[in-house]
């Protein structure tokens, strides 16, 4: 592990409170999403990011609004952290017309171009080359945009990962690859099927990149490493890959209680929960407990409002079904 060389940007207390609020929002949103599965409002599958909030929050805080996020099917956190309101996300999970994509994408494909959320991708590895393409476009057009691309530890063994990393490196693209290493694939431990100990960091050298590992449950540390890598990319110094160590508290997806994991392992990681940890740090920094409690309460109210709004959404019909296969808005393949 090498730590970054340039000085981290200073962060004031206000910004830290925002980081706290962001993590609380993600957490409460995901908990509500879970409840709504149980109530059968959310059909299909869904992959929660509970326990991994610090990564989404830290990176989003380090990005400009014009930067781009590329997420996986475990993308609720990343979508919300970029400023997408809760209601359309929740409505999307419920398959309503007021959903982010009117129900056509679902939980695994959250996208909000307006917020720089350039898609959530459900095929392992696919979005790494796509993020390269966005970064290439920024480079070509001479904008200062950076693409940040998140993926899991299990995703480092698929071909597209390899092609994208080499491609980004040789073209010096403004892209930051972020491996959220939560130790597990679906039900298999990544270390059992991966030839190196740190799935992303130990492969950085194969692409001429620095090996960077960060505590993914420490939002300040994440912010720091994110800011450095993004600044590097923006300055035309090329891609970075960051491995953030973290853990998902629940199962892989809706259907999975996550019982294959040793109880002690789950307990150990729950003790490292990024939110109580940050809570404690903020108290140490002199923030009053009631300021934090107020944030939690406000978020809870917002989640309730979003839930009601989402539930009020209409059920989509034939018109939406046959819309937007093509750029002309239609779906006709013949004259």
């Amino acid at each position, binding site marked *: 592990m090498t730590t970054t060389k340039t000085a981290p940007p200073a962060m004031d207390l206000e910004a830290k409170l925002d980081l706290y609020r962001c993590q609380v929002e993600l957490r409460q949103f995901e908990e509500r999403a879970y409840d709504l599965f149980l109530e059968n409002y959310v059909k299909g599958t869904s992959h929660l990011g509970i326990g991994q909030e610090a990564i989404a929050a830290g990176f989003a805080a380090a990005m400009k609004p014009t930067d781009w996020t590329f997420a996986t099917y475990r993308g609720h956190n990343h979508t919300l952290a970029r400023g997408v309101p809760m209601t359309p996300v929740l409505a999307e999970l419920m398959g309503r017309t007021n959903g982010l994509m009117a129900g056509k994408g*679902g939980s*695994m494909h959250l996208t909000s171009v307006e917020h720089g959320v350039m898609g959530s991708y459900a095929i392992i*590895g696919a979005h790494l080359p796509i993020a390269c393409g966005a970064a290439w476009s920024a480079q070509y057009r001479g904008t200062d945009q950076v693409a940040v691309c998140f993926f899991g530890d299990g995703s480092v063994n*698929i*071909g597209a990962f390899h092609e994208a990393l080499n491609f980004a490196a040789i073209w010096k693209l403004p892209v930051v690859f972020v491996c959220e290493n939560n130790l597990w694939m679906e039900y298999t431990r990544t270390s059992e099927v991966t030839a190196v100990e740190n799935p992303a960091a130990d492969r950085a050298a194969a692409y001429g990149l620095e090996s960077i590992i960060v505590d993914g449950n420490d939002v300040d540390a994440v912010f720091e490493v994110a800011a450095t890598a993004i600044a590097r990319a923006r300055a035309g110094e090329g891609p970075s890959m960051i491995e953030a160590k973290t853990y998902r508290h629940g199962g892989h997806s809706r259907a999975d209680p996550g019982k294959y994991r040793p109880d002690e392992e789950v307990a150990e990681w729950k003790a490292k929960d990024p939110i109580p940890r940050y809570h404690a740090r903020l108290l140490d920094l002199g923030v009053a407990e009631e300021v934090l409690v107020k944030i939690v309460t406000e978020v809870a109210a917002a989640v309730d409002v979003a839930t009601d709004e989402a539930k009020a959404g209409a059920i*989509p019909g034939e018109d939406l079904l046959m819309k937007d296969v093509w750029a002309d808005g239609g779906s006709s393949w013949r004259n």
Partner: protein
Amino acid sequence: MAQLTFREAIARGIAQEMRRDESVVFLGEDVGAAGGVFKGTVGLLEEFGGVRVRDTPISEQAILGAAMGASMTGLRPIAEIMFADFFAVCWDIVVNEIAKSRYMTNGQMTFPLVIRSGNGGGLRFGAQHSQSVENWAMMIPGLKVVVPSNALDVIGLMAASIRDDDPVIFLEEKALYSSKMEVPDGEILDQLGLAKVLRQGGDATVVALGNMVPKALLAAEELALAGIDCTVVDVRSLVPLDTATILREVSATGRLFTIEENPRLCGWGAELSSIVSEEAFYDLDGPIVRITTPHIPLPAADALEDLAIPSVERIVTTVTKSMNA
């Protein structure tokens, strides 16, 4: 006899063959300890051990490459591609390598392998986890393609596929995993390339596959009440294709309807239509009609997905309209 779900039938079919042949091995993602994400392989690791039942990394090209290399050197591997949509990340190994190598080597090599995969929609998984890919595979010379519609056929066709000396793409309809039926005890062995006539009727022939089979049967019941008596054929195996049965049944009724859970273009329905209009043209009494998913990616929302995939109601309406035209 035992009540068996479709997913239990998968494991039973595989276990039956692994017991009788040591060269049968099994690999895929989360197939071992977890018993598969669809719980189709529960118990296999426990019975056959970690040397024969192996969890892999998320490396579909490696999975299928390994299956191919093993099959050309004496094993009979079964590989799982978790969702059929993921064939797209390893399509080269399937179509350029596995399908062609026997022919290219003038028969020097044989590839007795089975690739099983969760196929089709209905589970609200969205466009990248709901595709039916039987047509992708049918299009490629050198691949056999099997799609069972019930637990009994799963066992018998799985056994036949494993014993077959050619590569078989074995597609398991996700929407059917929890369907149940009575299945006899003891060895079950079926045959590839045989369609099944599930219902005889004099007015029209309805040909369906996989998850569309139960829908076709329900539609036929309704249609019968309205005075349209349908033959229903379960294709079961697209390659080899039982054209004899299909041509016979279409010629008998003079009308063909195909029910496909596939986007519109270039599917097996079109292939059947074209075979019939080339070879049984003069037996036809009216247009051949294909009922398919529209030519769109599958949407995630339940309401939209239900509109997209052919329903009993759509089958009934379409057949009725065409028969009364």
